[in-house]
């Protein structure tokens, strides 16, 4: 939003706060492609979202098996709450990468969520996120639809966030005077400059703050030619230790929220949805076996859901390890046969129009990640 020409001129006196002309130049030359990352906090269960057609799943989860699933192919089905996702699948605009995860096996939400956002190996070891670093390398800006700024976006160029309030702001002149007390170059000052240069549509008082109405605002901003190219959503509630349930259980409810975000983006972005990619991100999957409370425990491998016009074709990508106990991780979890960071690196390469290796170098320290860009995305 600060990359539009008008605000760029308005901020020309304080160039460092808004990004260099180079950034603006790159952003305006580039065909606009949008990347939307939806964080599914709590441990999204790939075996519930995209259940394999395997008797072993039935026997491990007698009480929480999802009924009425939608068949995707001979091996996999889809949770019935992922309705929009399935419509997109039929239009070749949705795909799944199964049996994958970030390289983290220790089952702690906090460590896992830190790593899914930082992209590193040591919990709390990084102060920036993979998306922030990728955007900085590609010289692009993003918007987070959440109240705090997620780690995922940190390290980028003045990332912005949006979450409507009912309160009114002081007038501009007073805010300018407040801004003058913030040290130049401090992140506080950066945040203040974002506030001062915010478009009016985002300054209005809004009462409804559920995920869907936020998705509407994000869709409008993303659809703009000079709007942000990256948006991040935060959905919390996938940690279903109890009452995970089948098709109408807690996990289904959460998947339905994810599906709602995809639906709003598709409906409101118009043609821009064709130049958009939505990917899911979670800290880990859940154990194969159900627990005593009709829920599941923290696990390892899970699925990544991908939707939007930049998806190459409707396909379940997987080097499927199977659910036999010898192929489970630690004897308990679906294994991850590919580092999920490969998918995110490819998503950035496709959306930011930069080489996979370039992004890998800047966002993931040149680690060994396989280039899956061409097989997953339209480039």
């Amino acid at each position, binding site marked *: 939003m600060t990359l539009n020409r008008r605000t760029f001129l308005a901020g020309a006196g304080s160039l460092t706060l808004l990004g260099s002309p180079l950034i603006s130049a790159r952003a305006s030359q580039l065909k606009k492609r949008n990347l939307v990352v939806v964080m599914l906090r709590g441990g999204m269960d790939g075996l519930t979202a995209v259940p394999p057609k395997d008797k072993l799943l039935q026997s491990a989860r007698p009480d929480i098996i999802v009924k009425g699933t939608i068949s995707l192919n001979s091996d996999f089905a889809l949770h019935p709450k992922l309705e929009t996702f399935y419509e997109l699948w039929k239009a070749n605009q949705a795909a799944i990468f199964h049996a994958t995860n970030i390289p983290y096996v220790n089952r*702690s939400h906090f460590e896992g969520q830190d790593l899914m956002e930082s992209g590193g190996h040591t919990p709390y070891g990084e102060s920036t996120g993979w998306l922030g670093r990728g955007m900085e390398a590609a010289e692009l800006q993003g918007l987070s639809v959440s109240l*705090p700024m997620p780690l995922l976006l940190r390290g980028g160029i003045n990332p912005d966030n949006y979450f409507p309030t009912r309160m009114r702001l002081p007038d501009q002149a007073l805010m300018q005077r407040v801004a003058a*007390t913030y040290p130049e170059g401090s992140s506080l000052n950066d945040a203040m400059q974002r506030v001062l240069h915010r478009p009016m549509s985002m300054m209005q008082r809004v009462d409804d703050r559920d995920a869907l109405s936020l998705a509407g605002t994000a869709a409008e901003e993303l659809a703009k030619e000079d709007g942000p190219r990256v948006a991040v959503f935060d959905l919390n509630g996938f940690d279903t230790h109890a009452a995970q349930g089948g098709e109408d259980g807690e996990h289904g409810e959460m998947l339905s929220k994810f599906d709602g975000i995809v639906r709003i983006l598709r409906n409101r972005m118009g043609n821009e949805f064709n130049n958009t990619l939505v990917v899911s991100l979670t800290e880990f999957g859940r154990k194969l076996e159900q627990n005593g409370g009709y829920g599941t425990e923290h696990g390892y491998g899970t699925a990544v859901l991908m939707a939007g016009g930049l998806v190459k074709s409707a396909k379940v990508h997987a080097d499927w390890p199977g659910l036999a106990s010898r192929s489970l991780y630690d004897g308990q979890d679906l294994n991850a046969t590919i580092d999920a960071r490969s998918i995110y690196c490819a998503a950035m390469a496709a959306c930011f129009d930069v080489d996979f290796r370039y992004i890998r170098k800047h966002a993931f320290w040149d680690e060994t990640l396989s280039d899956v860009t061409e097989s997953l995305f339209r480039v």
Partner: protein
Amino acid sequence: MSKSYFRKVAFGIGPDEKLPNNAVSWAKNQVDAVPDLTWQGEIPSGKDLLTRYSKWVYQDRKVLREKHKKDRKAYRAAKDQLRLEVGERYFENLELCIRHDAALNSGAPVFERLWMFWCNHFAITDKDFMPEFTTGPFHRETIRQHMCGNFTELVTAATTSWSMIHNLDNSESIGPNSKRGRWRRQNGEVATVNENHARELLELHTVSPAAGYTQKDVIALSYIMAGWEHPHSKKRLECNPVKFNPDSHEPGNHKVMGKTYKQRGLSPKSKLLDVIKDLCAHPNCKQFIAFKLCRHFICDEPTETMMQPIIDAWDATSGDLPSIHKALLDVAWANSDAEQKFQNPEIWLLQLVKMTGAPWPPTPKEMTYDFKSKPNKRQRQPSRLLRDLGLSPYRPTQPNGFPDTAPEWLSPELLIRRLAASREIGFRARFDLNYDDVVRKNFDAPDEVLSHLHGASSQQKAQLLFPSYWMLMA
């Protein structure tokens, strides 16, 4: 002297208060005893609120859903009526009043800051309807009442409380070889432990992952914890006080972090108490808590030098909380000039209220509620304002509580909330407020701050001072 100390460890100095002569002894004198809550209105007991909660869940799940299963509209209307009867929209606001009244008026603001710290350390996440009914009393009755004893007692009380057991699903935990486990298997049902609570007890409440425990340790601790549950009853469902149930407990000895825990005496429940004692005496536990205290009160990246006196005090007194708190207050003073911290939204709000004498929280009279109509706007203001600022103390989303470092609280949108709140609350500052006096009492470079306010009307002064750099940092 460092005036920011009074904001670092408390909420600043109010218009009618004098600057204490000796900041450190002023602070240390506040942590030996639990001050009474100052709220003059109703303070409902945890027992009563658990009963209200039980009515809410029982009526909803067992009565209304059944009665109106074919008519969604009727169901909604009945549920809204129930909401009013049990005070579902009321009690979180009342709890915030009780909390903020204590912070502003108990005469021991340093204790109140520490209370907030420990409530956040033993975070009860926004789950089911806990913020609406039970988290407030958990803070008042479980955390607050154990802050002047030993750390072990605090951990034990929190771990075995209804709130923590329910929040971390320990009632779902069934030892595979327990009586219940065997019955369930005979009926073809699954019987396993739920590792959640055991994991958080290690990771978040005591030793932290730095202690290097393994998945085996977590499972062994889950076995030891199995049986600590809230009994289920027909009319109150899960809303019954925690009782150790030997039928769910995994029998036998279990090894956690290299030590085998055996049953002492007749009841296997002693095993958990023994583990907690050892976890609390573990070097990583002291290190972890010292780090968290320094990070909350001093700076985002505390040094070993800051942490050491706190660890020493812990060692010297085997975990006596007032001694630990006093060591912290010394360290905070020693670093008061050198270190600054970005203040989280709730503490910032309370500082703002303290300094301006704004009418906050709502009065007991304003909070008088009839359980018949929707709470009025003023009665709903506490939860609304805190949510707008981005920190609803009864609603952390994760069991590790609210974060304590600047980047987490620093985003354009969160800044907007501070700007807007400064405007709203500034309008309600005491009419005779002397900003010169406020600034001279609370800021270390008053002339610089005053020149920033120069020429502004008093309503503008609030909007200029409270979101300013000097106020956001302490």
